[in-house]
């Protein structure tokens, strides 16, 4: 596959093995300018390893990473000068307040103090942390810390952001604020590579999604297209005592596909109209009729089993 000239980051045939285990297996993707590409997959799917290879921190066994026309790992420093990174774990400096965190981080990019100081107020405002300029990370909530990490990743005005699970562990309010900020960055024309476990996040933010499992790409496309491609448009969830028994009744014929998970039966169908009155005959059960979503897709592609090794 030729490298698309317009792509800002291009990953070709990446392979990473640790001993016997292949963590990333022939993974290829590219990000266009202004695009938000989401990488979704279960824990242990190879998402973080892929990001580390994009950063030159992990050397792949095979394959290439090209960004801004430069080659990893040879041009690692020149590439990283144009990147902003929010890693899964906060690496904020606990000894510095918010403003100092930004100042010190900007220096790593070779920026002059005066340049950075000029940017600090707008970065803090962007992160809704103006009032916390002199608070240390230990005094901040989880959401504030993540936003400070995001502000820190923007200190060099990067063209591409690599965000590894930027909202994991945040409450809904903090998550929504983070999404709003990321939308603003996309409107400014920045590109984003995002890994996430949250399907609503992927659906909201990402123009295109990569579903990976066991280090392999198993699906790729726009969120709505993927749902259309892999799933029936409607889902009826049924749960409550006796729900599981429904899967073996004639009701099954009214759906295109039936799945069981825990206490819940999922009826996937093109048209739920015949199914709903039939379910009404079981008033003790609770039903939820909804359009198919990314979570259904994700579970269909990666399975419903909990992975003990993940």
């Amino acid at each position, binding site marked *: 596959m030729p490298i698309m000239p317009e792509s800002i980051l291009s990953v070709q045939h990446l392979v990473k093995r640790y001993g016997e285990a292949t963590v990333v297996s022939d993974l290829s993707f590219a990000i266009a300018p202004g695009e938000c590409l989401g990488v979704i997959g279960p824990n242990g799917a190879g998402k973080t390893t892929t990001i580390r290879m994009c950063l030159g921190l992990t050397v792949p066994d*095979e394959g290439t990473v090209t960004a801004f026309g430069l080659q990893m790992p040879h041009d690692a420093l020149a590439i990283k000068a144009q990147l902003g990174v929010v*890693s899964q774990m906060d690496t904020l400096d606990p000894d510095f307040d918010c403003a100092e965190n930004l100042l010190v981080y900007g220096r790593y990019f070779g920026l002059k103090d005066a340049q950075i100081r000029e940017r600090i107020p707008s970065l803090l405002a962007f992160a809704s942390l103006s009032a916390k300029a002199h608070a240390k990370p230990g005094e901040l909530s989880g959401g504030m810390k993540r936003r400070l990490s995001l502000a820190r990743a923007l200190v060099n005005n990067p063209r591409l952001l690599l965000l590894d699970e930027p909202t994991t562990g945040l409450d809904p309010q903090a998550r929504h604020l983070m999404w709003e900020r990321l939308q603003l960055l996309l409107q400014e024309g920045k590109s984003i590579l995002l890994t996430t476990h949250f399907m609503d996040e992927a659906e909201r933010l990402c123009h295109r999604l990569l579903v990976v499992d066991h280090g392999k790409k198993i699906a790729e496309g726009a969120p709505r297209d993927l749902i259309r491609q892999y799933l029936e448009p409607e889902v009826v969830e049924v749960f409550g005592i006796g729900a599981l028994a429904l899967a073996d009744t004639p009701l099954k014929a009214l759906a295109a596909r039936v799945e069981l998970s825990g206490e819940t039966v999922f009826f996937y169908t093109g048209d739920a109209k015949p199914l709903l009155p039939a379910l009404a005959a079981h008033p003790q059960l609770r039903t939820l009729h909804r359009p198919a979503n990314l979570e259904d897709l994700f579970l269909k592609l990666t399975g419903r089993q909990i992975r003990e090794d993940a």
Partner: protein
Amino acid sequence: MSQVTQRSVWRAPALTWRWWPVFRRNWLVWKKLAIPSLVGNIAEPLMWLVAFGYGMGALVGRVTVDGVQVPYILFLASGSICMSAMNAASFEALYSAFSRMHVQKTWDGIMNAPVNLDDIVLAEMLWAAFKAIFTVTAILGVMLALGISYSPKLLVAWPVLLGVGITFSCVALIFNALAKGYDFFTYYFTLFLTPMMFLSGIFFPLEQLPPVVRAISQGLPLTNAVALVRPLFMDQWPADWLRPLAVLATYAGLGFWVALALTRKRFRA
């Protein structure tokens, strides 16, 4: 598919000026705590000096160094300042560097910016050496105030002690690279640094040691540091400065190289 060749961790260091913002980061943290840390840094060496120098010194009287009789306090001060440089550098390159590297993940954050691991290791090495020279300077000040030595050659001893700090921070970073937790450093101190304190001619002349132990002692970095610094305290030039300097430079050079290789290995996941 393109096979990627894994670069050896033993390749030559690739150093740039990006070590400087990392050094400055440590400086900025330390500035906030400089005064309390100064008290901690110089209180212990001074206690040794006062207790042993004046206490033992009264019993010992004078000691012969290279045929010259000197007061015991001068003998001890010129040795123990090397020990202080060693301890300050070692503490910083072990406990503090490990906190930044492993506990706080500061290094990981820095490596997401255009700074490579080699520059971070260099910055940590120089930072630990800076902490050593800072401690040494404070202790030298106290020694001057106590009138232990007024040798003008102390001006030469100062950069030599910076070199001692560099040597010990290079060696300590090897153990930092290998550490799984803080407990590991206890071994380094109890099995390596503490015995060296007693075998390097700090508290008593090397002539007191049995010949075999003395031969081992000649290869220790601290012995060679003392061999350079002690004459300068006595307002003399070291009779043989080339050999001890070469020994220290070897420990520093090899130490840094091995430390860098092992640190690269640690981060190569």
